[in-house]
């Protein structure tokens, strides 16, 4: 982090190697395509570069980057006027996937934003509730509650579709 603050480009490359995989995956599920996800990740790194000097380390670097990424994803969606519609998953080769995975992916699109983000961060990307609470700036209990609501909705949705 100190090397990044000094403007060391190699430190940023290391930061990219460490975090880009997870950030790309989160962005993909929020914006719906790999190209848009990469745009969001690029914008995230630029914002991190611009704001690194002011980052005091109250939250972890990965939490901070994740928060920036989610905002960038909303920007990408807004730019493309996609907010009103569900993400189109054109890059996903559905045929090759397990039926439950495909059904789950579709059901995820029907969740509200907060439920979808908490589910993605906890169940898909493996963040802890304390980390999610820091990313979304909500109490930990709220994060647990949103996850429970998300899973209940997904269960209902999957049961209706006969999973």
């Amino acid at each position: 982090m100190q090397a990044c603050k000094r403007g060391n480009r190699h430190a940023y490359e290391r930061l990219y190697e460490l975090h880009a995989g997870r950030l790309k995956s989160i962005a993909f599920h929020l914006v719906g395509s790999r190209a848009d996800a990469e745009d969001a990740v690029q914008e995230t790194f630029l914002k991190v570069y611009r704001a690194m000097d002011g980052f005091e380390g109250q939250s972890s670097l990965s939490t901070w980057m994740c928060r920036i990424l989610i905002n960038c994803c909303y920007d990408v969606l807004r730019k493309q006027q996609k907010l009103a519609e569900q993400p189109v998953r054109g890059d996903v080769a559905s045929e090759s996937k397990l039926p439950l995975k495909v059904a789950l992916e579709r059901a995820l699109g029907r969740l509200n934003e907060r439920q979808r983000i908490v589910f993605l961060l906890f169940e898909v990307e493996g963040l802890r509730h304390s980390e999610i609470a820091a990313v979304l700036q909500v109490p930990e209990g709220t994060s647990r509650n949103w996850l429970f609501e998300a899973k209940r909705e997904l269960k209902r949705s999957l049961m209706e579709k006969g999973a």
Partner: protein
Amino acid sequence: MKFECGDLDRALGMPELMPEAREHLKQCAVCRREYRVWTEISTAAKELHEEWESPELWPRIQRAIEAEPKPKPVWWKEWKMWAIAAVALIAISVAVWRPWQKAGTPASLAGNPVVLNAGNRDFLTEQALREVERTENAYRQSIDKLSQLAEPKLQGSASAVAVNYREKLEMLDSAIAETRANLDQNRFNVRLQTELANLYREKQDTLKELLTRDQKN
């Protein structure tokens, strides 16, 4: 309380209800199916993590970062803070000292020729200025030697570290030149002398750091 099918959702969110729920699951096929879906959601979710190669993404980010104006380094901010603190301290010291001097100094000493201008609080005496200039010269000589040693390493390398050091040294040289130009207008200004000394010290430390780093590597 008798556990019914409608209680399952509530029980999934409340671990204390799960023993009763499990008893119910043994007898109810519908709830068993619901419970199976509930547990499979988490397993299937792990497979939703998307991985793909993006060989162009980092070069793109790097180009975008390079096009950004450079953020001011941390040492610059810290140095400014110390400079402000030093100026404030000098101002407070002078403010406290001057009334005391007026009250306590004998008339014969008040006109001491070493004091250039009693009305100007930031001014150095001639003797103090000579000492400051001697220190400055020592710094400059030391820095010149270090610069000569560091020059081949700095110019001969295109690494990001060398580029960072070059940029920092250029910034320091420019700040030194600017402070010296201001000092030429007013050689007795304490604040400017302090700034200049700090800049030389920073440059000396940077060159030493560069040379030591090179030896370590």
